[in-house]
């Protein structure tokens, strides 16, 4: 749709391989249907009628990790759950990305105790951190958009960028 408008009646588009591959990856990114705790309810909210995540080509949640590109760690990861999260991540095919949704997944949040892993980045490598307890659906959508932009910047040699942190504007220290 968009490409015909851009190309006009020329019939030919010149671009780089990187751009085409990355464009393809961003616009059909399938998240893993994987909820842990409170943030999963907001993730459901983001996919439901009001926020409608399918506007960004993200509505197709895959229940099997073998068909998913993106893992949204939505909620707190306990010590008992951590090996399961890692196994799910390992089962996802390359290329794959991870969003740590919410404070608990990002850093343990308010649960600084024996049971909770203090940040899912101890278990799986994270691309985007979304702050909030739980983050609003808008914040999650912002995080996903940020990830899409990050994927667009990816190089064909496979070098990955540093993680992105999305915080509430009031929390940012200038």
């Amino acid at each position, binding site marked *: 749709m968009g490409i015909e408008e851009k190309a006009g009646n020329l019939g030919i588009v010149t671009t780089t391989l990187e751009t085409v591959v990355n464009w393809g990856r961003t616009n059909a990114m399938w998240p893993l249907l994987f909820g842990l705790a409170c943030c999963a309810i907001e993730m459901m909210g983001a996919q439901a009628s009001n926020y409608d995540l399918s506007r960004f080509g993200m509505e197709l949640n895959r229940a099997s990790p073998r068909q998913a590109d993106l893992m949204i760690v939505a909620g707190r990861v306990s010590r008992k759950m951590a090996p399961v999260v890692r196994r799910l991540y390992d089962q996802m095919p390359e290329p794959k990305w991870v969003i740590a949704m919410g404070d608990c997944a990002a850093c343990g949040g*308010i649960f600084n105790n024996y049971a909770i892993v203090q940040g899912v980045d101890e278990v799986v490598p994270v691309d985007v951190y979304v702050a909030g307890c739980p983050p609003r659906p808008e914040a999650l959508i912002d995080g996903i958009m940020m990830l899409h932009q990050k994927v667009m910047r990816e190089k064909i040699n496979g070098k990955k960028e540093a993680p992105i942190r999305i915080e509430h504007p009031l929390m940012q220290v200038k």
Partner: protein
Amino acid sequence: MAEPITVPTPQQIIEPALAGRTETMVLNMGPHHPSTHGVLRLVLELDGEVVVNVAPDVGYLHTGIEKTMESKTYQKAVVLTDRMDYLAPLSNNLCYALAVEKLLDVEIPERAQIARVLLTELQRLSSHLVWLGTHALDLAAMSVFLYAFREREQILDIFELVSGARMMTSYFRIGGLAYDLPADFIPTVEQFLAIMPSRIDEYEDLLTANPLWLERTVGVGVIDAQSAIALGLTGANLRATGVAYDVRKAMPYSGYETYSFEIPIGKNGDIYDRYRVRIAEMRQSVKIVQQATERLRELGPGPVVTPNRKVAPPPKREITESMESLIHHFKLWTEGFKPPRGDAYVSIESPRGILGCYVVSDGSPKPWRVHFRAPSFINLQSLAHMAKGRLVADLVALIASLDPVLGEVDR
């Protein structure tokens, strides 16, 4: 006398299978499975497609909330209660606040009582909407989910208006509310009340007489009243068996005895009856919210926290004028209040069943022990009893109808 009720453990199913002593197949379901509503793991013993035995394995979301609360002061521990049953944070707040208030023996102002009832009933509506949406989604009715979340967003907007947060509001504090209700609160709630009854009719149009829905729910997952009580089943699941036990009526709290509402009950104790009971409960909640809104309007503005300065901080303007107020404020936020030694148990009717809170005080500003009687955790025990002899596909409907919230199961 029927066979004795047993609650199997995963090991009891796995070990004989590994030793090769059984003819049946053992299947692992979860902790990552779309229809387990979170991180519930089930170990199934199957004979073909028929469930011979099933054992839930919980603890994948164990958060250590009870231990963490022991290291916080009473006021600070409120935020932890929100995150247990994350579909009904206000019910958790209320239960904990009532337990601590019982220890302290403080009076709550009328306005705060009404606001508590009003908001917990809205919370029940929003929780039941998530249950309805996901239950229908599990049985492949996608559109109900989209409709249910449409109304849920409206309720969350009310919570946001009141407290600034959509889900984790922490709005009920010990001694009353965190702050007063905003000026446009009543009109917003009335707007919502105007549309909600017709929206409930809409859900019923989609499901109640739907042949596919009836096929999957009628006569499935039956439990009788006696076994339900023995297994500690509470909430809509118990009432679907015909037992009219609701804490709001049996041991009223927060002034529920002054509202007129009915307890809907079922007859057969199957999934369909649970569905009917919950839908009827939603209508009753709308009724209670209506009454509470009227009372709030009649009552007019007033205090929303207890005047007891040892429990709740004084209003901000007093602090600049009165030395005592400043001292009270300082003492409350640095040290906290000290309830007398003793223990108190309070139970309320949360959307999932009887939510209890047991608090032990040793006379210090931090609770010695806080225990929550989590309804989801205890309701889950009856899964094996209901699922035996049914198909695997029925199990999916069964889990959804029990409506467990794993955050509360594991705490």
